[in-house]
Every structure is written in structure tokens, then in C-alpha cells.
């Protein structure tokens, strides 16, 4: 089995993995970072969205071996070390941007990526359009959209990853 090394949430990790191991399996089963969820497993629902080298991707449709040398950020890597939530997480909490919470990690990662790409002032139409790749089956979009608009504003001044 090949050895794959990458940085996950700022920490260097290395492991023997089967080539067919998906990135999401590697994160959840090897690293025990179970915040990243598997919803549909068919690249549609967005529950597994993480940041790969600064870009939101679906970790159910990426092989772990493809991430050799990559920088991965998961939902666990957003909050500060002392537990203080990332402004986008705080905005989801404030606006009650979730019901069951299953889609939330992917929603938050997609939302942060949206801010990286589109800036801090996001209107409702833009947010809804950009959420194309994230499904919430509680139909809780209304508060998710509100949370993202508020979180985007609160992220003002935060650094964006170099592309």
C-alpha cells in the first residue's frame, strides 16, 4: 500500500492507505475526523465538502492518494485552538442555520469557500446560486442563506488562501 502524506488542519499526517481509499474515508476512518460527513456518496449532496489546497471540493470524489503533499482543511480545522468558533460557524449558530445538522459541516465549508471566491458582501441570490452543490433535506435553506450572508460580513479582514 502506498504511503500518503499531507497536511490536515495544519498538522502533518502520513499513513499507508489502499489506493482506492477516498479522501473522506481517510479523514473519517483513519484520522477520526468525523465532522466531514458522507451523505449521498455520489458527488451531489455536498456533506463531504472540505478545502483542498484552498478550494472547496467533494471529498467523496477524491482519492486520498491524490492528495500527496496537499493542504487539507476540514470543519474541525476552522475553529481556533481555544475552541472559539470561526465567524461562519458562529453565524450558523446565531441564525440557527441548521435543523438536523447533517449537512452543516459541508454547508459551512462551502460558505467559507464562497466568501473566498465572491467576497464579504453576498446577496441572497448569489448565495442560493452558489449553494448549488449542497443539499439540506430538512429544507432549512432560509436560515442557512441568512447565516452565510452574516458570516460573510463577519469574515471581513480574514486572510484568503493563496490560489
Amino acid at each position, binding site marked *: 500500500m502506498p504511503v500518503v502524506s499531507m497536511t490536515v488542519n495544519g498538522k502533518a499526517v502520513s499513513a499507508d492507505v489502499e*489506493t482506492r481509499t477516498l479522501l473522506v474515508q481517510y479523514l473519517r476512518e483513519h484520522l477520526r475526523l468525523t465532522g466531514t460527513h458522507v451523505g449521498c456518496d455520489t458527488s451531489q449532496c455536498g456533506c463531504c465538502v472540505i478545502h483542498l489546497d484552498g*478550494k*472547496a471540493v467533494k471529498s467523496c470524489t477524491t482519492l486520498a492518494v491524490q492528495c500527496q503533499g496537499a493542504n487539507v482543511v476540514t470543519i474541525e480545522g476552522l475553529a481556533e485552538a481555544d475552541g472559539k468558533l470561526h465567524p461562519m460557524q458562529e453565524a450558523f449558530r446565531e441564525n440557527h442555520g441548521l435543523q438536523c445538522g447533517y449537512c452543516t459541516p459541508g454547508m459551512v465549508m462551502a460558505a467559507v469557500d*464562497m466568501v473566498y471566491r465572491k467576497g464579504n458582501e453576498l446577496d441572497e441570490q448569489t448565495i442560493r446560486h452558489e449553494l448549488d452543490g449542497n443539499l439540506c433535506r430538512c429544507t432549512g435553506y432560509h436560515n442557512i442563506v441568512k447565516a452565510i450572508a452574516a458570516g460573510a460580513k463577519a469574515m471581513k479582514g480574514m486572510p484568503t488562501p493563496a490560489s
Partner: protein
Amino acid sequence: MYAFDYHAPKTVRQAVNLLAKNPEAKVLAGGHSLLPVMKLRLAQPSAIIDLNQVEGISGVEVKGRSVVIGALTRHYQVAASDTLKDVLPALASVPGSIGDPHVRHRGTIGGSIANNDPNADYPAACLGLGATIITNKRRILADDFFVGMYETALEPDELITKVSFPIAKKAAYQKFKHPASGFALVGVFVSKRGSEIRVAVTGAGSNGVFRVPQFEEALKKRFSPKSIEGIEVSPEGLNNDIHASAEYRAHLIGVMAKRALAAA
């Protein structure tokens, strides 16, 4: 998915050598068509040849009267290219309609073209602009490249490295998305470059992307939606499935072609 060997070549040459040595291997670019098929165990490649570390096959540049796009250029990069938006906005508009933002961060133009999914968008852009597909071996005209459903003129040890699109004065792509999948139920790419007029259709043909000669002929007089009014497209050879009947698709081709002409 089934187990496989994994290779991550650094050059096109290494990739092609690996392909030649592993006839049952599959090439991995963005992975958003191949990995889902492997997860369903519908494909069982002996090896994966991952192109993501290959240098020099990504980027958008203008060369004379063409735009050349590297095979590994991702959908979001093509969509965001200021160069492309400037010289050929119709082509820049194509990848923005593929999948969702996360998918566009991975998917590549070369992968889409090599896969030749009958509902994919890039094949329509290639055929609709008269692109040239450049491989490690040769240059292939789009008219000769797209052979049939998921079938191309590529040989087993041949790899797309770039795609060259002539800069058309007028061009546009209009896509009627399937509301759930986002794939093209019908997508029409139109272009006019000097006296060359092209109308290419994706999503509708049971054999993949195709041109509509009767529209092209009628547009020679005037490149406008009015010129194709009343010209019917035969439902023969069009897809007939739970999403839409062949007749519906035939009608939609005319509608989307007119919209594209109005936008061009």
C-alpha cells in the same frame, strides 16, 4: 470500488509510457466522471494514471487567432479566465454551467472531452467552434474526434494535452438544464467565423454531440434566430427517455438554437 495500481507521472511522456504498458489502465484528471463509475463498480481499471502532477498542461493562452487551453485546466479556471472572457466569452460561459462550484474546482476540460459524455457541455463547444484537439501524437479536428457515445478518436496510448479553439466573431452557448442533475437536456453552441457557421448540439443525440446542417445552411444568409424559424429537426436518432421524448428534444433544439443565436 475494485482495487487498482496507482501512478502519478510528472510528464506527458511518462504518462503515455504508462498507458502503453497498461492497456487496462484509466487516466484520471478531475475524477468526477471516472471515480463515480468506479464506485459503482461499472469500471475496473487495472491501474489509475493520475495526471494531476503533470506539469505544463494547464492554462489559457491566446495564440494568434486561437485560444489554447491546457487539458488539465479546471472548469473554474476556464470560467474565471479574463483572457478568455475578453476574446471568446461564449467559451468562457460553458464551464460555469457544469456541476456546482465544488465540482468545477476539480473537473477539467481535457477530461470532459476525452470522456465524451453525450450530455456534456464541452463537446458542444468544441464542435460548435471547430476546435482542434491536440494530443501527444497529433492534431485532431473536433469533427473527427467525437465518434459516438463515450467514444472518441483517441488511441489507447494517446493523451489530450491541449485544445485549440479558433476565435469566432460571434458565438454563444445555451443550455436547457435537467433540473435535478444539471446536465444538458439539450445544449446548443452556435458560432460564426467568416463564412464558417456552426451549430452543435449536446444532450439530445443518442450518439453524442452532432451538428445541424440545415440550420447552418439557413444561417448563411443571415446569422439570426429568424433564419431558422420553421426549420424542423427530426426526432430520429435523438434520445427518448424518462427525462424527455425524442420529439420534445427535437423541438428544444430549435428553441435553444434560437436563444443562442439571439445571444451571440
